[in-house]
């Protein structure tokens, strides 16, 4: 079903208008409170947080070292004097060294997947679980969820926060839930069809897999009863959104969260879809240069750093997410007064600094997607032969991109060149290479070779 009359791409390129594809509803009045009032609330909650954190050894030591305490929090700028918390700090205090309440107050424990080393655990009190459900309800309602809807949740229910987080959010709104969990896509399709879900909740890549599986069984995915999709749990591109919307015939919304901060519900899109509204009455967000930890210029991409103002069991000060995104505090046509974050464009781990400009492999991928529809294999090679950094993007030619006409091949190369420049702001050499010539390790493609590292230049 199509709810948005014109293409989303057009809607994105135009200025936000007060015209929504469905009724713009606000779940919680806190979302539209005056900015000055919210800042006052943040300050009050920050001082309370610092007072509560005296019971956490990590923070107690940090406060003692720096002479900071709740009485020193006079303005929100004082946040900058508080210590940074990293994933490594959480690991060092494995499993629950950051717990700020007596163990008997803990109502639930979730964990991150722990692809590198041991998982990290986070704990919730009953109050935290209620906050979390309310935050998920906020973005679900912002993205069109109504009590009469049926919601198909294809997130894993387990230590991962996706399944349970969205589950209780949907429950608060009063919609019906099909807790399908993950796996067995043909069965998921059957459930969506037979139980008539209008709303799909999963990762964006799983939404595409559902469409793919539908097609392979001779079913037109656009004919499924789905109307809305709320996707998160992994970074995705604008092109992927368009593809999902086209294939499933839905409106797709982005939401963001990480277990350390609370899980999904940290931010999510409204009907205007001009970024994800950050729930600033519960979190203070900073956008910092990952090297200097100083704030980036407004509107520039930086590492998001969150302070959890209201969490009881597992509060964190200035937690480094390693996610890179832009912040935007311009007014949103939906009326919410919270700042918005753009989609996550990369991880600090992947970031390249080229001629002083921060660049992510995902940006090059986005440029390739724009030119070719789907991204071919590519490799970014960085070197500094003289004083300047030089970048070559090797792009594997696929049969569908290849033409016997030189003019077409030249124009393909020029288009890639233009898009890479448009997305990254940098000129890179574009080199078309034969297929299957770029290195792949264990199914995952290697995206970057940085000769500057070998030469000891960075």
């Amino acid at each position, binding site marked *: 079903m199509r709810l948005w009359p014109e293409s989303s791409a057009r809607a994105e390129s135009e200025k936000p208008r007060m015209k929504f594809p469905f009724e713009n509803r606000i779940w919680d009045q806190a979302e539209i409170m005056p900015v000055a009032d919210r800042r006052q609330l943040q300050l009050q909650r920050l001082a309370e947080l610092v007072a509560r954190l005296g019971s956490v050894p990590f923070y107690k030591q940090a406060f003692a070292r720096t002479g900071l305490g709740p009485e020193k929090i006079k303005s929100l700028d004082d946040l900058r004097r508080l210590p940074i918390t990293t994933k490594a700090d959480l690991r060092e205090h494995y499993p629950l060294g950051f717990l700020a309440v007596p163990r008997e107050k803990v109502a639930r424990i979730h964990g991150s997947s722990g692809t590198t080393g041991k998982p990290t655990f986070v704990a919730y009190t009953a109050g935290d679980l209620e906050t979390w459900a309310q935050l998920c309800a906020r973005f679900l309602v912002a993205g069109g969820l109504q009590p009469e809807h049926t919601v198909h949740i294809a997130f894993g229910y387990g230590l991962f926060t996706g399944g349970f987080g969205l589950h209780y959010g949907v429950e608060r709104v009063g919609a019906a839930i099909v807790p399908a969990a993950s796996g067995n896509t043909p069965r998921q399709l059957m459930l969506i069809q037979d139980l008539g879900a209008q709303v799909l909740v999963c990762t964006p890549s799983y939404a595409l897999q559902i469409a793919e599986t539908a097609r392979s069984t001779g079913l037109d995915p656009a004919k499924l009863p789905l109307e809305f999709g709320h996707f998160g749990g992994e970074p995705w591109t604008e092109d992927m959104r368009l593809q999902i919307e086209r294939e499933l015939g839905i409106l797709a919304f982005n939401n963001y969260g990480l277990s350390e901060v609370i899980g999904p519900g940290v931010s999510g899109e409204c009907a205007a879809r001009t970024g994800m509204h950050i729930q600033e009455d519960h979190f203070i967000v900073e956008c910092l240069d990952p090297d200097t930890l100083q704030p980036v210029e407004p509107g520039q991409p930086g590492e998001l750093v969150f302070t959890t103002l209201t969490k009881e069991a597992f509060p964190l000060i200035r937690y480094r997410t390693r996610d890179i995104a832009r912040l935007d505090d311009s007014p949103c046509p939906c009326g919410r007064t919270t700042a918005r974050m753009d989609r996550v464009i990369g991880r600090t781990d992947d970031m390249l600094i080229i001629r002083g400009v921060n660049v992510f492999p995902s940006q090059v991928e986005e440029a390739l997607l724009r030119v070719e529809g789907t991204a071919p294999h590519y490799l970014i090679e960085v070197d500094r032969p003289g004083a300047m950094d030089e970048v070559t993007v090797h792009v594997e030619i696929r*049969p569908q991109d290849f033409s016997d006409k030189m003019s077409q091949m030249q124009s393909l190369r020029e288009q890639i060149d233009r898009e890479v420049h448009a997305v990254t702001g940098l000129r890179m050499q574009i080199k078309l290479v034969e297929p299957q010539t770029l290195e792949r390790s264990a199914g995952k493609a290697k995206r970057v070779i940085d000769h500057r590292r070998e030469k000891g230049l960075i």
Partner: protein
Amino acid sequence: MKINQLSVFLENKPGQLSKPCRALAEAGINILTLSLADTQQFGIMRLIIHQWAKAKAVLEKAGCVVKVTEVVAIEVSDRPGGLAEVLEGIEAAAINIEYMYAFTFRSGDKAIIIFRFDDPDGAIRALQSKGINVVGNVGLYDRAAV
């Protein structure tokens, strides 16, 4: 009337040209004629091969990107002005030539030239109406004696 041409993408680096040629040689496939177009960054090799379908499979197995395109083989008198006459005929019919290249063998007193048009069918009709001989598959490969 139209014949199938194979195009192969080549990276501009040493040894790139010999790889597809070696693969065809090992499969016992003869190349009737070829042309190369190249830039500083990459090249395109275009091949006319009798067993083009088999050749395509062999090249793809060797890791090449291969594209099949329909081209037109035209007889041209092998004397001064022979090509100019044909080109004038094509020009008069307002047909755009993407690129062209010659065969290595002659057909009697005629040379054979491969033309790549955007609309090969329209081009053939126009050429024949002007009395220009378009060489068909059978005739072409017979003359090449393969």
